[in-house]
């Protein structure tokens, strides 16, 4: 052992000649973290956080040398005098009722709020420029941020990092609710990570899985923080967070079990070599005495307890940097299983494809006696293509009735009878034994009123305009240019002659 250590020392000396410590003191550090928490309704939330901390000032216009901190953002902060920057791109809405308190919530769409440094003279110009540049970096439509959707809150959005003053004239806040978040926003976000998506936790960030989820929120937070406890110097902190909620419950046939591979279709193989900390936390807090139900594999090396959002939580911790983790197997696939079979419950859901197949939702539920069970489904109204409307579109569109099939316990036990011999009205549904009978109920079909455009509107407008103009102008014109002249009394038309003949017969003077 001693000989080995000596050989190692020699090698180090050869690698770094004239240097006592190989490598100079790092001024930046990266920490990465993944928090997996099962949600009350059986879904799973995964929250990634990557924190790059840089012990350097970002002065305007000076030479800067970047290592872990991404150059694109560093230049932006330096060039525009940004004090603090918070950008969140979110798809979906965090359903607090079914998922509980959110760890990091963001509004649907894009949210950007920025504190500028007091040295910035024209904040509006810098804000416009910043949103344009960010829209280029993140491939988002942030360039649609202008004075019509920008506000300056005076009370709510205080700086999260170090700040000398909180003059709210330096704050700008904007939300674009229409922004659709997709792969093209994720790729540049991943590119900001020092390890990219090649190593570490970021390996799990596979776009096709992340966007196949109920909620996806990615964010970038830049702020100045204290370098040490005495807080004499400033460090810059970049936090990249990504929260995603997988509907493992309904897509996994109603089972609450999950694993990293099932959610991300990847497993962890190593830590990012540049990270000083790389950990996976799994929330295994006991919920109403169900502690013994949960089983996490592989067994965590340590357990961490903390009070989060007013509740005591227990987390299983996996440290990717500890060499023992990858000793037994080459990859880490955290799995969570429920030991006791859960309530007999089966959910099968096949989502629809537009114009190809309808939705199918099947649920097997055991209903308690004397209870009311309501199943509600939310839907969105969408506009159809104009050729797809029926001739009477205002009537609405039918959604076929839902079906309820049940085996109802019989009050009186029946004896088994021969199907061939029994009357026909009792023998359509076979019953296995006499203790229950089969019932199939149908609900009313649903008539949904879809938004219907006014198909004839443009035609009407053109017709009406033409008519009005033509009538007004034409009659006016006629009136002014018509030639009036005195009509010679003539012998009259056929009617008059007929009348005169009749009058002649009667002896009355003609007209």
């Amino acid at each position: 052992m001693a000989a080995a250590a000596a050989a190692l020392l020699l090698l180090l000396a050869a690698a770094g000649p004239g240097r006592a410590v190989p490598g100079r003191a790092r001024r930046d550090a990266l920490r990465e973290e993944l928090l997996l928490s099962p949600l009350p309704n059986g879904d799973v939330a995964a929250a990634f956080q990557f924190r790059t901390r840089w012990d350097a000032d970002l002065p305007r216009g000076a030479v800067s040398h970047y290592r872990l901190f991404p150059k694109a953002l560093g230049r932006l902060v330096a060039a525009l005098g940004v004090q603090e920057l918070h950008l969140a791109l979110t798809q979906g809405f965090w359903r607090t009722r079914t998922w509980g308190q959110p760890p990091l919530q963001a509004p649907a769409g894009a949210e950007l709020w920025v504190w500028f440094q007091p040295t910035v003279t024209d904040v509006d110009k810098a804000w416009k420029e910043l949103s344009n540049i960010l829209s280029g970096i993140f491939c988002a439509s942030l360039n649609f941020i202008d004075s019509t959707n920008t506000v300056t809150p005076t009370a709510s959005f205080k700086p999260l990092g170090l700040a000398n003053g909180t003059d709210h004239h330096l704050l700008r806040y904007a939300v674009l609710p229409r922004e659709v978040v997709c792969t093209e926003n994720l790729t540049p976000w991943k590119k900001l990570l020092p390890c990219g998506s090649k190593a570490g936790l970021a390996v799990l960030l596979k776009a096709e899985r992340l966007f196949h989820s109920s909620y996806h929120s990615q964010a970038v937070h830049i702020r100045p923080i204290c370098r040490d406890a005495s807080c004499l110097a400033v460090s810059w902190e970049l936090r990249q967070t990504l929260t995603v909620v997988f509907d493992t419950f309904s897509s996994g046939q109603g089972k609450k079990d999950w694993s990293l591979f099932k959610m991300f279709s990847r497993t962890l193989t190593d830590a990012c070599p540049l990270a000083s900390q790389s950990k996976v936390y799994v929330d295994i807090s006991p919920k109403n005495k169900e502690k013994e139900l949960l089983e996490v594999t592989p067994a965590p090396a340590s357990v961490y307890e903390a009070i989060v959002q007013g509740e005591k939580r227990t987390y299983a911790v996996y440290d990717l940097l500890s060499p023992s983790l990858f000793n037994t197997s080459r990859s880490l696939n955290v799995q969570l299983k429920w030991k006791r079979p859960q309530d007999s419950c089966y959910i099968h859901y096949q989502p629809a494809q537009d114009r190809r197949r309808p939705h199918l939702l099947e649920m097997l539920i055991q209903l308690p006696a004397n209870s009311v069970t309501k199943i509600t489904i939310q839907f969105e109204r969408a506009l159809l293509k104009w050729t797809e409307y029926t001739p009477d579109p205002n009537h609405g569109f039918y959604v076929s009735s839902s079906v309820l099939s049940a085996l109802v316990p019989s009050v009186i036990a029946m004896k088994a009878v021969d199907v061939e011999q029994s009357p026909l009205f009792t023998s359509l549904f076979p019953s296995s034994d006499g203790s229950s009978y089969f019932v199939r109920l149908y609900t009313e079909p649903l008539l949904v009123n879809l938004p219907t455009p006014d198909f004839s509107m443009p035609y009407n407008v053109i017709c009406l305009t033409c008519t009005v103009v033509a009538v007004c102008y034409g009659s006016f014109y006629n009136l002014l240019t018509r030639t009036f002249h005195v009509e010679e009394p003539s012998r009259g038309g056929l009617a008059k002659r007929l009348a005169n003949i009749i009058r002649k017969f009667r002896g009355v003077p003609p007209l």
Partner: protein
Amino acid sequence: MAAAAAAAADEAERARGRRAALSFAAIAVVLGLPLWWRTTETYRAALPYADIDGLGQLPFQLAVPVAVVFAPGAVPGDLPKALPFRDVQEMEISVNLRTSITSRYEMIYRSTTAQEEAALHVATAQEADAALRPLQDASLGALTMYVVPETSSLLPQGISVYVGKHRGALVRAGGGLAALRTRLRQLTQVMSFTASSIAAALSDRVPDGQLGPDARRHLKSSLGYEITFSLLNPDPKSHVVDWDIEDAVSRYVQPVLDKLSLVANFSVDSQILYYAVLGVTPRFDKESSSFLLSAHSLPHVINPVEARLGSSAASLYPVLNFLLYVPERSHSPLYIQDKDGAPVSTNAFHSPRWGGIMVYNVEAPASPQASLPLHVDVDMVRVMEVFLAQLRLLFGLSREELPPEFLLESPGSEGLADWELDRLLWAHTVENIATVSTTLTSLAQLLDKIGNIVIKDDVASEVYQAVASAQSAMARLAKGHLHSAFQASKEAVTSSERAFFDPSLLHLLYFPDDQKFAIYIPLFLPMAVPILLSLAKIVRETRQRKKEPTKMD
């Protein structure tokens, strides 16, 4: 009688109707049409089309003031006049069929002053160059050439021309005036501009095939450049690479950029990119047990790296990238092969108008079980030598092939001699003016072609400003005032770009004709039809009335 009165009244009534119809038509033509025209007209300020057209011809005249100073004993015998005297030589550089550029060398022949004579009495040419510097005309573009006697020991043996670090040169006399003149002309071209450097600056206008391979290498002239040094470490598990880029930039790059700050604004930064790989898998060579990148695969190297470099979102200046690539452990050592298959000595290559890449091999540890990761400290002197050479190459400062009797002083720590800066300024001024002319010509053509474009007054004033600046730059070039000409050309570029990219030009650009008809027809048709019909009726009636008297006869 009554019938006659009725006919007269009828006739009066008919005349009134005619007058009403005519006045309708008159109102529509006199009031309606101009009103419609004025309200739907796009505002188009007047532009100096003739001047822009004149700029397009590029009537350049480049004047180089040259002072030829004869040391005692170096004056050739066959001088046409007694010293001092002036002489002008002209040279025509033809760019294409339409454009040719006249260069005028305004030579002043004189003999040395006492101070200059004293300065020439030193041991070496370098010392003489340093001593003569304060005595020279310090303005940009002005050259001073000292003709020393044939027997002078200032110049080394076999060297007849010595170009110093500044704007001076020493020339060995001998061979009469004609020989001296050709030598001086050659020297002037080296120190100011040659036909090929001007052609490279105007490369957009030179027909294909006439340009050398180097002409498209130079960076386009711009108001600023961003220089990014990137260290690519594709294998951070095996190599922990450190480079002292801060020190290297301040020591080697900053002096050059300080000198170049006259030409443009520069910003420098650096970054380290991990897991950034080249787009080509190198070939393993068994003989040398190394990996090879052949010359024809180099074009494919850059693209995958480029995506990670991080474009300069915060500015519009062109970016120069210098990449230091430390190959992954499984692919090292990695060598670049040239077209003949020989390894490139610097292990680096450059991409025109983009930047350069250097491969930095990490020495393999003595024993294969050495602990990973391996700490590597980059030798910045070796790297910066290559990058600075590439930087000079990209700016078109590479030294051309010269006859063996020419000796160029190395620029030393500044990385750039004064006359090289002048060369750059000549080329950039010419290129700027050509760019302005191209921009304005295309703007004028565009505005001429699409009548819907609004030309606001501020756009027009920018165009006027650009034309005026370009013209003044040309006038100053013809006078030999290089510095002020360059400043004026920069202003012209700024103004012309601002005019060309003004967003107000796009406001009414897309206004298709069918929409116009859709709007106008419901309005105009019901109005025009009665007017036209009644006009036709009036015409028919007047024709009939003219015929009636002939019938009476």
